């Protein structure tokens, strides 16, 4: 079974101070000084692919994992790590374009990669990035490929060469489905899916394998049908009154007397107890 995991790295915007939140006239913000991190949903996807790989021997299903990102050379470190974690193939599609809000472009690259470069049985993506929050790439890719798409996956298990057991977290419950490949799976909030860390020995043995690099110019990128025209920083600020006191107990008392006692809702709730 060939599994392609598509991931992206994003700057950790929680590190930005209030003063840093400034967009220029090109709707760009300077995040060059922030260390890039793996997008958390993609991290889950990568770890879940590796977990499938762990099981492949016992289930007797040979698995070939490919990790792919559309990015500039800043992604090299994480690609080396993925090599060290023994992804069979690690691919970077070189692009210096602003891809924050271009899920159609990414989906078309993925589709062409799958159809023309390396056939796949499963396409695995994180639900959305922390930056663009588009949440569309996986759906667009599924439509472009003509494949079914199962979303909100939180657990994937290997059944046999053509089937996976996928558990999805829906709004009001969990759906466990045995599905036939090919398919697109998108990963939601999956608990306990931090990506494992390669050992130094693996980094020395496998980490130095070549990274397949293609250019985004070799792909036909479809136009986006949604155009970004404005970005406005949201400031969440309230009074922030600090309650002083010599002990936590004193502060609790002041909190109650000064701010909670009068709340109708609190009283209503108490009346119900």
């Amino acid at each position: 079974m060939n599994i392609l995991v598509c991931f992206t790295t994003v700057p950790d915007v929680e590190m930005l101070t209030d003063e840093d939140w400034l967009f220029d006239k090109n709707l760009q913000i300077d995040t060059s000084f922030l260390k890039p991190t793996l997008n958390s949903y993609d991290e889950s996807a990568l770890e879940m692919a590796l977990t499938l790989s762990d099981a492949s021997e016992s289930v007797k299903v040979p698995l070939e994992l490919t990790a792919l990102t559309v990015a500039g050379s800043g992604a090299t470190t994480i690609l080396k790590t993925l090599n060290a974690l023994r992804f069979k193939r690690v691919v970077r599609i070189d692009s210096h374009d602003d891809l924050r809000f271009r899920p159609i472009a990414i989906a078309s690259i993925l589709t062409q990669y799958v159809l023309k470069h390396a056939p796949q049985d499963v396409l695995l993506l994180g639900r959305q990035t922390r930056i663009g929050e588009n949440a569309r790439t996986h759906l667009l890719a599924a439509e472009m490929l003509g494949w079914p798409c199962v979303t909100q996956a939180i657990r994937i298990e290997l059944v046999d060469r053509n089937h996976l057991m996928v558990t999805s977290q829906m709004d009001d419950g969990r759906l466990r489905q045995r599905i036939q490949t090919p398919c697109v799976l998108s990963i939601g909030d999956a608990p306990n899916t931090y990506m494992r860390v390669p050992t130094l020995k693996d980094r020395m043995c496998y980490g130095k394998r070549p990274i397949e690099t293609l250019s985004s110019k070799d792909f036909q990128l479809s136009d986006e049908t949604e155009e970004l025209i404005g970005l406005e920083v949201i400031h969440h600020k309230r009074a922030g009154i600090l309650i002083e006191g010599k002990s936590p107990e004193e502060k609790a008392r002041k909190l109650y007397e000064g701010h909670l006692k009068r709340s109708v809702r609190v009283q209503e709730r108490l009346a119900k107890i």
Partner: protein
Amino acid sequence: MIFKGILNGCSSNIVAQAEELNGFMREHLSCGDNVGSTIAFYSKKEEKNALLGLVPTESVELVRVARYQPENILEALQTVENTEKTDLYLFPSGYAGSEIAVRWACRMKGSSLVQVKQIECSGAQLIARKTVYANHVLGTFKLTKRPYSISLAKGCADSQAITIRDKRIVTEYDLTGLQKDQFIKHSKWIPSETTQDLEAATFLIIGGRGMQTKENTQSLKKIADAMGAAFGVSRPVAMSAWAPMHRMIGVSGAITKPEVCIVAGVSGTAAFYAGIEKSKTIVAINTDIRAPIIKAADVAVIDDYKAVMAELAKIVLS
């Protein structure tokens, strides 16, 4: 603009869905030029009448399906919508709405955007706004290709009860026999509690990763229960499985609007804050005065939450 709202009657939160759609339509599409109707999906015969009562427009197309299954729902929509008259499709908030909206737009060769907070009809184009950069930024987008398919952001509009009494069923479809889901060999549904309790709560206590352990999470929940408050957690807590997912508050969880919200041991990222920003009063308890939540709260206590909450519970219950 001719628009259609889509209702997923297979979901257990149909009332909230309908009221949210209703509120959105009233807020953004109530001017005379806009003509709206609804396509409502359902699966159980006995739910049809209740569903009809929740339709927010006068006219509705009712579509019965076997269950909520995206490939079949999309096929059903293709059967129902066989002309190109509709300009805008409104899909409900939540994952189901978003996934159908995007795939539908693809099939209809139109624009899509998910988790939309506001729209503006400006001449030939639709302007839509949604949060980006983990809820730090509001992005404005121009949708360029008709028909536009958007899914709503949770809490994007004040939910409004449906007041229209008489509905006209334009057409009824029985599409329970669709088979676009043949790739699914077996499926099992495990229902769980929804986030509805949190979303309806008027008094809410939330614990964050400052709680440090599953045991502490359970202890804080006990205090919340004793005080009559709903109990929620931030994403790191849910992701560590110290509390079930349906207690998660934030952009990927519940969007709440309590009168009083006590937030303990939460640093307060923007993505979390989206889940509580509609609160009337936010009280933050944290040992770190520099945590982002402090400036975004009405009142803050810089101290160990355990001691503060224990004393608060004592006072409230005495």
